[in-house]
């Protein structure tokens, strides 16, 4: 089995062609199918990473990755969850430390895309005081990323022709209004606010956690606009 993942290993004994000669290249068909199909899965899942590194480099990188982290799941839609950790420790790319953050964002977008559906909850009947005391249930497709690099600006520059990124940290909120995940850069305090909501704190407590200078209306607007508030914990 290991020979299927490692091209340095010999073809296992007992595998032959129609004349009983050793299988040789015939075994490589399986070897190539394994590596090729897994590489295609990774390329589909990490398009910006592939664009940043170039297709040839990406395929070589995928070859190293898939041998170090062969799939533990048969659901290929999420294969590659270890890519950020792998990249963070991959010495040849140590001079490009934002690559791991890009991989984290792309994996979060894949997770959001396949997350369970949930209908938005109507909060309009809730007065200010009950609202501040409420503990919100966020949609399964919500993801929060705190990155040391301008990860969403890099993603947009490559996927949507956005402007060149400015080198600064970015906190990113992913919501999924219907089927397509949408990512936003969060303002100051936004990540602490959303993290507190995800941890089950009340809106009031999350607001406290966000600290000074936090514009709660901007972030609530992103959450409501993205259909990300799907219930109240009190109602569960």
């Amino acid at each position, binding site marked *: 089995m290991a020979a*299927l993942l490692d091209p340095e290993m010999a073809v296992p004994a007992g*595998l*032959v*062609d129609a004349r009983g000669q050793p*299988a040789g*290249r015939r075994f490589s068909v399986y070897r190539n199918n394994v590596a090729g199909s897994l590489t295609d899965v990774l390329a589909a899942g990490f398009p910006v990473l592939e664009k940043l590194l170039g297709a040839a480099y990406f395929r070589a990188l995928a070859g190293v990755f898939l041998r170090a982290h062969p*799939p533990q799941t*048969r659901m290929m839609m999420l294969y590659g969850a270890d890519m950020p950790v792998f990249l963070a420790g991959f010495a040849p790319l140590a001079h490009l430390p934002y690559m791991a953050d890009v991989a984290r964002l792309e994996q979060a977008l894949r997770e959001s895309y396949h*997350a*369970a559906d949930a209908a938005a909850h109507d909060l309009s009947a809730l007065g200010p005081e009950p609202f501040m005391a409420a503990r919100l249930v966020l949609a399964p497709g919500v993801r929060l990323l705190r990155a040391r690099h301008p990860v969403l600006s890099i993603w947009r520059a490559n996927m949507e022709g956005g402007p060149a990124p400015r080198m600064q940290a970015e906190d990113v909120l992913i919501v999924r209004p219907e089927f397509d995940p949408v990512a936003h850069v969060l303002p100051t305090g936004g990540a602490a606010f959303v993290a507190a909501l995800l941890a089950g704190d009340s809106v009031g407590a999350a607001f406290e956690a966000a600290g000074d200078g936090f514009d709660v209306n901007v972030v609530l607007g992103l959450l409501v606009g993205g259909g990300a508030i799907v219930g109240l914990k009190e109602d569960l």
Partner: protein
Amino acid sequence: MVDAVTPALPNGPGVGYKAQHFNDILAAPGAVTWLEIHAENYMGDGGRPLAQLRHLAERFAISVHGVGLSIGGEGPLDAAHLARLKHLCDWLRPASFSEHLAWSTHDGAYLNDLLPLPYTPATVARVADHVDHVQSVLGRRMLLENPSSYLAFAGAEMAEVEFLREVAARTGCGLLLDVNNVFVSAANLDFDAAAYLADFPLDLVGEIHLGGHFVDADDHGAALLIDHHGAAVVDPVWALYADVIAKAGARPTLIEWDNDVPDWPELVAEAARAAAILVPA
């Protein structure tokens, strides 16, 4: 183990569903009467893939084709994976479920390819146990597909058709006959495809696959055909298929095109070619 409630696939042409064809399928299905999906692509929790599948299932009979069960594997079947498959079949109520005579996992790692096994009495027993397990969990009869082979096992003791017949006899499963796989294996292992098909238990065939392959060469310059599902079905495979239909009668027939996927009209044209053989003018 036949599930009397579930409708069978129509005895017409179907195609492998690709998301890029979603709107075309609904607008202009042409000769296409049913769709096949890969089970593993619909095991997510939600989102567009499942929403589109629910929509298509209102209009078309659906065949669920698994690629990840590793029925030919040495160890027990993955219980979590089988549970996900059961969940999919329970809500979708597909017209058919099929899997491959192959293995794809080892020591917990999944290799995302259909790997071959030697045909022996011991492997018959193992595969039959796994098929029994799948059928009892799903509560339905499954179809088992013949593989495409690139090499042989020195330790093999049985022919492939004998192996499939024996597994079907022990488990009551049906068979999925992939005519392109027969053509590919015959070229690679130097046997006669027509003789293989003459021996094949056509009464057990619940579905036929037709796909394209790629022609390469081995270390000795001998032809090495690779089943890549990335091209049109070749004429000799159409001829073998026509012989099978003439002998067996119409069967649900899938055009399998998974790589370098063509535009919808080209896929419909392949389905129409199958339709012309299924129902001669």
